[in-house]
C-alpha cells in the first residue's frame, strides 16, 4: 500500500485549502514516520523555500495541491533516509561528526557576531542628521545607516577578539608557522582551545605552494572562529534546533552517497547498463518544422495551392492557422525529433523533401500542412557523453526498490485524508 502512496502523484484534500505563508496557529500533523512528524507548517516552509515559491502563489488550486503532495512525498522519503542513516550509524562516522562540529562552530560564531551587530545603534542625533540629509530617499538613508553600522561593527569585532585572546590567555607560536612541520605541531593554545598544523590543512582548499603567509592567514581565521564560538557557547546559546536541522539535511545525503558507491562501484556497472539500454546514447534526427492548421479540408486545399504558387506557409500560418500556439509563432514549430510528432504527421514527413509542402493531413485537431525547413542528423553519443545520465538512471532504478524496502521497514502513518482512490493505510511495518 505504501508503495502506491510514494510512487503516485497524490493530491491530499486537506492540502487544497491551506493558505500559503500564513502561519497556521495550530499546525496540523500530516504524516508521522516512526516518531518523526511532518506538520502543515513544515510543509508550508518547504513550499516557501522551494524554487517555485514565487510561481506557486499564482497557481490554480489543483496545481498547488499536486505540488504540495509532491513535496510532502519528498519529505517522507527524506525522513525515511534519515532514519535509515541513523540505523546504519552514519551519524557516528568520524567524517560526519567532523562536519557537524564545524557546523556547530559556525552557528555559534554567527550567533555571537549577529548579537554584537544588533547592539550597535545609530545614535539619535546622528540618525536625525541622516534623516534630514536623505529626506524622502529611503534607499540612501538605509545605505548611510548600514555604512555607519559596518564601521562600528568592524572596530567592535577587532576589540572583541583582542579581549577574548586575553581572557583565554591565547598564545600563538609564530616561530612554528613553517610549511611542512609535523602535523601535530601546536600553533596556538589557550584555555581549552588549541590549533595544530593539521587543522589548517584539513578544511580549506590548499594553494599550489603553502607559504608562511598563507598559514598565518588560516591560523588567524581559525583562531577567530574558535575564540568566538567558545565565548558564544559559554553564554549558553541553545543551537540544538539548528544542529538537528543539519542532521536531517545531511544524513539522508550521506546515505545516498554511500548507496551510490555501493550500487555503482565502478564504471563497469554503467557500461553494462548502457549495453542493455542503448537508447540513452541515441540521438534521433531533428527537423525544423513549419505547420499550418485549418478547420476544413477546403481551406487546407486553398492554402496548399497558394503555397505551391510561391506564397509563404509561415505568412499564412501567422494569419490563419487555427492552432493559437502555431499562429503566434507564424507556424514555426521549432526543432522536433523524429518520432515525436503525431503518427499521421510523422508519416507525412517521411519522404518529404526540404521546403516542400506536404499533402493535407487530417487529425482530430484539424487539417495540417507541414514543411521541413532544415535537418540535423542523428547519431550516437559516446559513453562519456552520457555518463551522468546513466548514473541518474541506475540510481533511480535502485532507489525505487530501496525506498520500497524502507517504506515497509518503518512505520508511516498518514493523518491527512487522501484522495479517494488511495486507501488510507493502517499502521503496518515492523518499526525501526
Amino acid at each position: 500500500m505504501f508503495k502506491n502512496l510514494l510512487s503516485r502523484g497524490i493530491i491530499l484534500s486537506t492540502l487544497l485549502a491551506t493558505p500559503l505563508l500564513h502561519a497556521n496557529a495550530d499546525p496540523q500533523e500530516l504524516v508521522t514516520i516512526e516518531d518523526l512528524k511532518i506538520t502543515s507548517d513544515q510543509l508550508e516552509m518547504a513550499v516557501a523555500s522551494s524554487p517555485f515559491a514565487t510561481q506557486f502563489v499564482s497557481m490554480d488550486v489543483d496545481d498547488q495541491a499536486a505540488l504540495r503532495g509532491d513535496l510532502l512525498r519528498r519529505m517522507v522519503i527524506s525522513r525515511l533516509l534519515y532514519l535509515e542513516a541513523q540505523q546504519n550509524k552514519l551519524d557516528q562516522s568520524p567524517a560526519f561528526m567532523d562536519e557537524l562540529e564545524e557546523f556547530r562552530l559556525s552557528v555559534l560564531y554567527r550567533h555571537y557576531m549577529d548579537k554584537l551587530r544588533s547592539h550597535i545603534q545609530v545614535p539619535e542625533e546622528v540618525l536625525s542628521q541622516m534623516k534630514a540629509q536623505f529626506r524622502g530617499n529611503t534607499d540612501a538613508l538605509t545605505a548611510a545607516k548600514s555604512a555607519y553600522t559596518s564601521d562600528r561593527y568592524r572596530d567592535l569585532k577587532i576589540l572583541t577578539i583582542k579581549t577574548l585572546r586575553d581572557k583565554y590567555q591565547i598564545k600563538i607560536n609564530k616561530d612554528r608557522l613553517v610549511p611542512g612541520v609535523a602535523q601535530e605541531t601546536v600553533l596556538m593554545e589557550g584555555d581549552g582551545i588549541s590549533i595544530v598544523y593539521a587543522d589548517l590543512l584539513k578544511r580549506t582548499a590548499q594553494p599550489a605552494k603553502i607559504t608562511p603567509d598563507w598559514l598565518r592567514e588560516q591560523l588567524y581565521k581559525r583562531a577567530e572562529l574558535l575564540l568566538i564560538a567558545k565565548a558564544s557557547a559559554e553564554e549558553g546559546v541553545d543551537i540544538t534546533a539548528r544542529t538537528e536541522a543539519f542532521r536531517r539535511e545531511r544524513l539522508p545525503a550521506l546515505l545516498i552517497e554511500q548507496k551510490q558507491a555501493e550500487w555503482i562501484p565502478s564504471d563497469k556497472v554503467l557500461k553494462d547498463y548502457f549495453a542493455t539500454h542503448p537508447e540513452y546514447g541515441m540521438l534521433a534526427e531533428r527537423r525544423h518544422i513549419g505547420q499550418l492548421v485549418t478547420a476544413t479540408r477546403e481551406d487546407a486545399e486553398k492554402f496548399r495551392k497558394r503555397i505551391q504558387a510561391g506564397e509563404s506557409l509561415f505568412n499564412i500560418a501567422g494569419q490563419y492557422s487555427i492552432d493559437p500556439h502555431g499562429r503566434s509563432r507564424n507556424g514555426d514549430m521549432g526543432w522536433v525529433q523524429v518520432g515525436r510528432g503525431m503518427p499521421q504527421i510523422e508519416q507525412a514527413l517521411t519522404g518529404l523533401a526540404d521546403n516542400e509542402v506536404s499533402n493535407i493531413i487530417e487529425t482530430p485537431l484539424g487539417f495540417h500542412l507541414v514543411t521541413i525547413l532544415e535537418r540535423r542528423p542523428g547519431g550516437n553519443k559516446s559513453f562519456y557523453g552520457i555518463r551522468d545520465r546513466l548514473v541518474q538512471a541506475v540510481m533511480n532504478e535502485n532507489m525505487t526498490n530501496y525506498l520500497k524496502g524502507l517504506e515497509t521497514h518503518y512505520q508511516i502513518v498518514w493523518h491527512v485524508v487522501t484522495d479517494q482512490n488511495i486507501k488510507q493505510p493502517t499502521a503496518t511495518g515492523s518499526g525501526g
Partner: protein
Amino acid sequence: MTTQHKPVVVFALLLALIGTAYAGYQTSGKAEKSGTSTTTANGEKPHTATMALPAKTNNAWDLPPIILQGLDGKQHNLADWKGQVIMLNFWASWCAPCQYEIKDFISYQEKYAPKGLQIIGLGLDEEPKLQNASRTLSVNYPVLISDPANSDALLEAWGNPQRIVPYTVVIARDGRIAYIHRGQLDPETFNEFVVPLI
C-alpha cells in the same frame, strides 16, 4: 554562573568604548552623492525619490481617473475611496518582492482600516493569476485589474513609465500625493510616511 555573565560585561564595556570614539560621527560624503533632490511639477516636494509626475498637479483627483474591473468582478473607480488615505499598490503575481510586502499590507489594512486607511492593489497581470495570488496570500483589500498590454498610459500618468513593480503611491485624505515608493515598502517606511497621514 560567573563565567556565563562575563561576556555580557565585556560586551557592554566594548560598546561604551566604541561609543565615545564615534561621538562626533557625521554622515559620509559617499552616501551624500546617492541622495537626489526631487520636486513635482507645481514645486511641491512629495517625500519620494521619484521624478515628478508628468501632469502639472500633485493631486490624485486631477489625474486621469482609474476606472477598472476588480477581482470581485465589479467595475471600480479609485475616486470611490476619496477622503480616505489610499495606498495604491502596483504589483504583479510573478513579482517576489510584491508578495513579501503584500503580507505586510494585509496587516496594515487590518489594523488601520477602521482609522481610514484603504489599500488598493492594482494588478498588472492576467486575471486568473491575480485571482490565484490574491486567494493564496489571503489579500483583504480590493485588487483592480489592469491588462499589462494596455497599461502604458496609466503607468505614465502615475509616474511609473518604467513599469516598476512593486510601486506604491500614497494619497492623503485631501487628494495630495504624499509619497511615492519604488520597490518593496518596508514597515519602517510605512510607519514614517504613511501612518502620520492616517
